[in-house]
């Protein structure tokens, strides 16, 4: 089934996105920090993946991906993997922190960096 890989990724999100609301971790509500935190990992692991594909270290079953192939032979699911899995990891990490110290206040939106009025 062409949707197999995408369904695995969707299942990962279904398991972890509720943590945002159950534990009030404010991960998805800080999208700029989240994306910035993912950037080094994205560069490193997408490069690794492209190298591995180029070196024939692994291949993808064309019957189990939707067939959208990005430059370098990267299936779109594989690119999404490096967005989905790290987001799951951050959600789980913040949920563990909240679970272990429940009285820790939920992180608020960053206050204005403006100093006190002169």
């Amino acid at each position, binding site marked *: 089934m062409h949707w197999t890989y995408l369904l695995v990724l969707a299942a990962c999100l279904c398991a972890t996105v509720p943590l945002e609301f159950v534990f009030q971790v404010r991960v998805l509500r800080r999208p700029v920090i989240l994306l910035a935190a993912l950037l080094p990992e994205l560069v*490193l692991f997408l490069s690794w993946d492209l190298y591995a594909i180029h070196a*024939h270290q692994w291949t993808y079953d064309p019957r189990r*991906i939707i067939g959208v192939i990005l430059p370098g032979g990267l299936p779109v699911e594989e690119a999404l993997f490096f967005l989905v899995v790290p987001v*799951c*990891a*951050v959600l789980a*990490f913040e949920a563990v922190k909240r679970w272990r110290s429940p009285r820790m206040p939920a*992180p608020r939106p960053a206050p204005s960096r403006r100093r006190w009025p002169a």
Partner: protein
Amino acid sequence: MSYTELAVTAVVLAVAADRWVLRTRLLYSRDFWITYVILLFFQLITNGLLTGLRIVRYNPASILGLRVAYAPVEDLAFGFALITITLCCWARLTAAAAPAGDGTAGPS
């Protein structure tokens, strides 16, 4: 480089990022290891699906051949490095966004 060599390199990079580059010291915190064990459990399931259903197929020449839940043992190192580097960057950036205490991003 083989997948085995790259996986070991990635783990070394992840440990170095935590210990020296970002100085987040997550690998010394219980929060990190509890998170990792939970994620490892789910990795064994999802990665088991990806490899067991042969969505991803590995070249036998680039792996050791030792498998855990259908997946090459190298995938454990790959996953550990991915999780560690991501969480170190997240911890560093969230500590920078909300400076408190001595300003380090150490375990809470």
